[in-house]
């Protein structure tokens, strides 16, 4: 879906501070990049496509302008991949408690 219509739940993007506007105490690597912002809300424009400058109303009712970057944004975080390095821990600890290491 590349087009959003009024009322759709979308995510917008903004630059809050350009690199040259950043705080003086910021480390050099951070100073090279802008301060960016993302926020979600309901689209107020009649219609818009990804990349358009739009206005949204956030869930609590604030109006914010920004570049449309996502329509129906969703969470994609999960429980991660298998971490084989963790698998020994429970067996090791049960082994110690059962007295396995007393014979060492």
């Amino acid at each position, binding site marked *: 879906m590349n087009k959003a219509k009024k009322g759709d739940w979308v995510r917008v993007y903004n630059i*809050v*501070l350009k690199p040259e*506007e*950043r*705080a003086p*105490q*910021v*480390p050099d*690597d*951070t100073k*090279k*990049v*802008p*301060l*960016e*912002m*993302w*926020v*979600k*809300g309901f689209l107020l424009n009649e219609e818009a496509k990804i990349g358009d400058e739009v206005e949204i109303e*956030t*869930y*609590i*009712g*604030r109006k914010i302008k920004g570049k449309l970057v996502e329509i129906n944004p969703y*969470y994609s*975080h*999960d*429980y*991660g*991949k*298998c*971490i084989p*390095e*963790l698998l*020994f*821990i*429970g067996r*090791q*600890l*049960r082994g*110690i*408690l059962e007295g396995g*290491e007393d014979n060492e």
Partner: protein
Amino acid sequence: MNRDMSYQGVMSRRNEIMKKAVGIDYERFESKGIAFDYERMMRETGYSLQEIQKIQNETGVGNTPIYELKNLTALARKLAPKGKGARIFIKDEACNPSGSFKARRAATSIYHAKKLGYKGVIAATSGNYGAAVASQAAMKGLKCIIVQECYDSRGIGQPEIIEKARKCEAYGAEVLQLTVGPELFYTFLKLLEETGYFNASLYTPFGIAGVETLGYELAMQFRELVGRDPDVVVATNAGGGNLTGTARGLIKAGAYDVKIVGASVNLKGLHMASDTQFNRKSFTTGHTGFGIPFATWPDRSDVPRSAARPLRYMDRYVTVNQGEVFYITEALAQLEGLERGPAGNTSLAAAFALAQELDEDQIIVAQETEYTGAGKHIQPQLTFAKQNGVDIIIGNPDDEVPGKNIILPSHPSLIKARDLDLDKIKKSYIKNCIETTKINYVTKEDIDFLVEDTKSNEEFVKQILNELGVKY
């Protein structure tokens, strides 16, 4: 509106904005020098412990259970010299409505905001506090904005922070996500000015007094359970509020002899405001990146005078490594049947090591847990670490280099609580007081304040003033 909205412009209005947004006139408690009347501020702008208990009760906050971790205790005893290995307990703060002890802080802040007639609240946080504020705001019918430091310049964010955003949005909050940088505070100020909402700062007297019930409950629960106060309470230390509130609550319960230990994850060498280092740490809270700067300068927070002053109460300050906390998190699930989030287990990793120094009949408590779930669990956090080039190694945690590797101890006997030099931290705090106030003469009142604020004595403070060449 012709207000200057540039970084410098907004920052120059900081005090004016804050006064409106917190409703406290901090000047009432200030002296001309270093000293300020901390206890009077806590008394006059906060609530009594009984009032807070009532406020928290209304929204189901507090009265969390205590578990004796019998298997972890047995394990500690296997590793400790004969006769050593204290009983390890944990206070299950994950049972609060928002999944962490932070609900206690949020409950009082939101109650106060509502009472004062604010329409909404704002908090700047990547973590559990945001979820707590959003949850309490939902219960009280207030609007809520959470401002989050979430992504690096590649747009990549830690699963733990993304999960916190999800939780806040689940409670109907607006979540404003930013890239790395201290200018989060600038955005925060702009929002306060624009909305007129309440600053649900972590560092107001309401926020800290909200945690006092934790310490108070803890003492009461132990008296009921084992007939006495615990010997040692370990608190994860970041901004200092957890430790401060808990210690104050214990004192209010008359539990004067409990030793208070602060524990932080060691993130030495990683700059907290660095875009490139932001995603090279696997802990977003409870680490030395907050613990040290906030201990050595508590008033760096978002209110003129922080009510979180951990040096006042801390008897000992230890660090643990990231790999050790992940290991103990797995151990807590495997041996005790409690799956909890890693950050909250920082104090448990320390308690497990410290238990081995104490006698068998002594009691040590890790005073918090936090919720876990997708993103906020050891697996996604370690997956993320690997994806960002951090090595996961099974070995000796002493070899861990923050940002480079995470070392899961190959054996639980390798888990250690490493002491930080508390005198050095206190000295650094006193130095900061002198540098910030730019005074060249320290009064008797200032010295008394510094003695209290560092839990030291006059001789110690005077010795440091001598070293700094400051007259008194």
